């Protein structure tokens, strides 16, 4: 998975789930079109995307996210220095016209590292959530559909995962298996799936009672088909909303692990390991250009993605409509 083809966090994941729709807006409206099964109207889908974009929370979040992602992708065009170039003549210089955000202890350009580091942070966020979705949706769907013993086993496993505090466990695993990007993705993905699995399971438990699932079972449609067409595709609103919110958690977790030196390892930049320079008291007190930019970047991206997630959540919540009861043929 490369950064280039995962333009916007959760939406790209949703598109992947749904079958390669690359138009962002279309995918969002698709995902929310049938938030209440069978109770929607034709215009609901178009209305959804319009009103979603008109929601300032969503529009603002989307704009900020897109800006940050675009800047990170365009890093080679926007920066004059390679992120890992060491310049011993300008160590720890303050922001200036030559180094816009100053340099770090090895004379590397902070602005350049910020943009390249952003790629890493976003990649980890997306990849970890993709892993969570694969594990969580699979187990949640299977558990919810089969109920009984399968459900009991999956739920007990998820409880075991949930009963360990995240950071001590993540730190231990990272220390044992070594600090690198893919280990961070694995740790976050494997430790964080139970939340999504439980949400999907709850949704599937109610979806499986719908007559369209009964129909497929009665005529003998293979189970994997029922799981995919009947259940997973109808869970997309839940997956999109919670996937979006999970991206923020994953980005923060990456930052925390890298800050502790257990995530993305030097010399490759990430927002988390850039922050680790602030472990030094002198840097913290007198050289704020080294840690303020990555800190602000993390905060901005997390807030923006969170805002989108909140807006999506609000949007897919079923509401009582009078319009849906009125036949479309007599609009005028």
């Amino acid at each position, binding site marked *: 998975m490369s950064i280039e083809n995962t333009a916007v966090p959760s939406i790209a994941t949703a598109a992947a789930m749904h079958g390669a729709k690359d138009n962002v807006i279309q995918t969002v409206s698709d995902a929310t079109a049938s938030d209440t099964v069978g109770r929607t109207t034709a215009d609901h889908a*178009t209305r959804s995307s319009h009103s979603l974009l008109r929601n300032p929370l969503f529009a603002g979040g989307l704009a900020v996210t897109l800006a940050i992602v675009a800047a990170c992708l365009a890093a080679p065009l926007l920066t004059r220095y390679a992120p890992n170039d060491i310049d011993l003549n300008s160590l720890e210089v303050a922001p200036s016209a030559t180094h816009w955000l100053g340099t770090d202890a090895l004379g590397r350009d902070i602005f350049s590292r910020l943009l390249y580091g952003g790629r890493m942070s976003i990649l980890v966020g997306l990849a970890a959530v993709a892993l969570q979705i694969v594990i969580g949706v699979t187990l949640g769907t299977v558990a919810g559909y089969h109920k009984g013993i399968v459900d009991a086993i999956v739920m007990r496993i998820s409880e075991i995962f949930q009963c360990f505090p995240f950071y001590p466990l993540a730190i231990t695993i990272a220390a044992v298996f070594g600090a690198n990007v893919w280990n961070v993705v694995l740790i976050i993905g494997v430790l964080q799936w139970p939340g999504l699995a439980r949400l999907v399971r709850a949704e599937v438990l109610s979806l499986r009672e719908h007559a369209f699932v009964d129909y497929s079972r*009665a005529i003998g449609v293979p189970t994997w088909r029922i799981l995919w067409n009947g259940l997973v595709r109808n869970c997309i609103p839940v997956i999109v909303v919670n996937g979006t919110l999970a991206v923020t958690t994953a980005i923060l977790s990456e930052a925390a692990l890298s800050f502790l030196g257990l995530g993305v390892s030097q010399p490759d930049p990430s927002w988390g390991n850039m922050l680790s320079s602030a472990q030094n008291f002198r840097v913290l007190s007198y050289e704020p250009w080294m840690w303020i930019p990555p800190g602000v970047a993390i905060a901005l991206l997390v807030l923006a993605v969170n805002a989108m997630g909140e807006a999506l959540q609000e949007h897919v919540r079923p509401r009582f409509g009078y319009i849906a009861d009125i036949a479309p043929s007599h609009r005028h």
Partner: protein
Amino acid sequence: MTDATEHAETPALSVRDLDVVFTAEYSGDSDVHAVDHLSFDAHAGEVLAIVGESGSGKSVTVQALLGLLPQYASVTGTLSTADERTFDLSDPAQLRDLRGTHVAMVFQDPYASLDPVFTIGRQLAEAVAVAEPSLDRKRVRDRVNELLDDVRLGDVEGIAGKYPHELSGGQLQRIMIAMALAEHPQVLLADEPTTALDATVQQEVLDLLYSVCHDLNIATIIITHDMGVVADIADRVLVMHYGRFVEHGTVDEVFRAPKEEYTQKLLAAVPSADGTDHVPESKSGEPFDDVKPLLDVNHLTVSYRDRSGKVKEVVHDVGFSIRPHEVLALVGQSGSGKSTIARSLLGLNPLTQGKVLIDGKDIFALRRRERRAVQARFGIVFQSPSESLNPRLTIGDIIAEPLRFVGHMNRKDSRNRALELLDTVHLPADVIDRYPSELSGGQRQRVAIARAIALNPSLLIADEPTSALDVSVQAEILDLLRGLQRRIGFACLFISHDLPLVRSFSDRVIVLHNGNVVESGDTDELFTHPHQDYTRNLILSAPVANPRIQRARRSERSNSPSNHPIPSKGTIK
């Protein structure tokens, strides 16, 4: 415009120029004109029925009168009462004075309207205390008992101390009426008050509404889509279509000589239970006696173990057989086990005992692969088309599902076959790429039928295929099913609670009650000469769209008040 307003005395409620528009902001691209300049009067001691199909604006009308519409609805018009107060309907705050004191409401679903954690008595007492704050405790209790007597629940032992879940649907709807009466209203609004109830229970509630209206001299407005209900209790009828006034008149005028084309269409769509429109040629009509049965069900028993571990038997030792090309109807009220039988045949819930033979082979003894092949010979149509079509799939994918995953057709062939099937059910080819939410209820049910016949079934199982649809659409769907049945020649297990429908569609009928077969036989024979009291009462309790017949039945009932022997469980459907 002829308005529904001519009458001698001052009306209890008079609505002028009611207009409701749902603004474009909410509804999408255009404004929706839900009610178009409607005027009508309701008089004390009279039942006014507002009739229309879904989307006619009848429910919106009632909600506008109570000020219950959401903000994005723009409402204009006035409402005046018998004491000559006039209210502006565009101002919901004004209407607060009106609600409860002058106008009371009975909603469709009593389960949703009562609080499950308080006793009936307490909830009634609360309504009484709100209506008459000056009453002391004892007087409130007396008033509650009086109200229970008014709705003829006074002699049910300890009813005031019971919780909603301990009562039947019919009893709960009576409690709702009692609550409405607590406030001494002059106008009672009832929005589809019996739609959620079984036929026999429906009759009790209608009788009660009828007597409340006439004995307590309350103007009653009942909203309904059911012409039988209208014929049964209405004095006057107002017909609406797409928010517009269509026709108004006394019940006899409207039923005997409907002036407008739409009203005629509406009345023509109702199958009549007395069999007057019954054409025998519409059925396959062949002699069946010497044909080997297609489906043979023997000693079918289904039981559940409930939470406390008690075994509850919902279907008890039921046996029947269906011959090729035959339509067999399973009839009964909710809780009679008719849907459970269908689900068991489809393998959706396990049988406790019994055998289901297809062409002499026991399906549940077969191995999985063989069973699949047998299942592929079933076509299935469920009650609610919006529930039974996956909202995420296009119509094409929905119809192709059995073709591809059961019939193992490739994508291209299945699409062509889907197009053919759409044509068979009279849908335009371009719906193939649309989603179910873009179709109307009737169109969705056509899609469900197209899917059901995709694999040329030898048996179609139709579980209440029309009961979620509007009356005029019901007739179309039934015609379609009948035509297909004759053309393709599948046998059909037709499950319904709607007796007129069963009479016009099926060859043989099995009447079920509490999981037991009460009676079975040839349709005409059974409807004209039912052997069991239960069957007779079931036939009589379905209201017929004929005011004369309904009046005769009502007077017969009131002459012999003990003649309500249906041991109804009265559950909600």
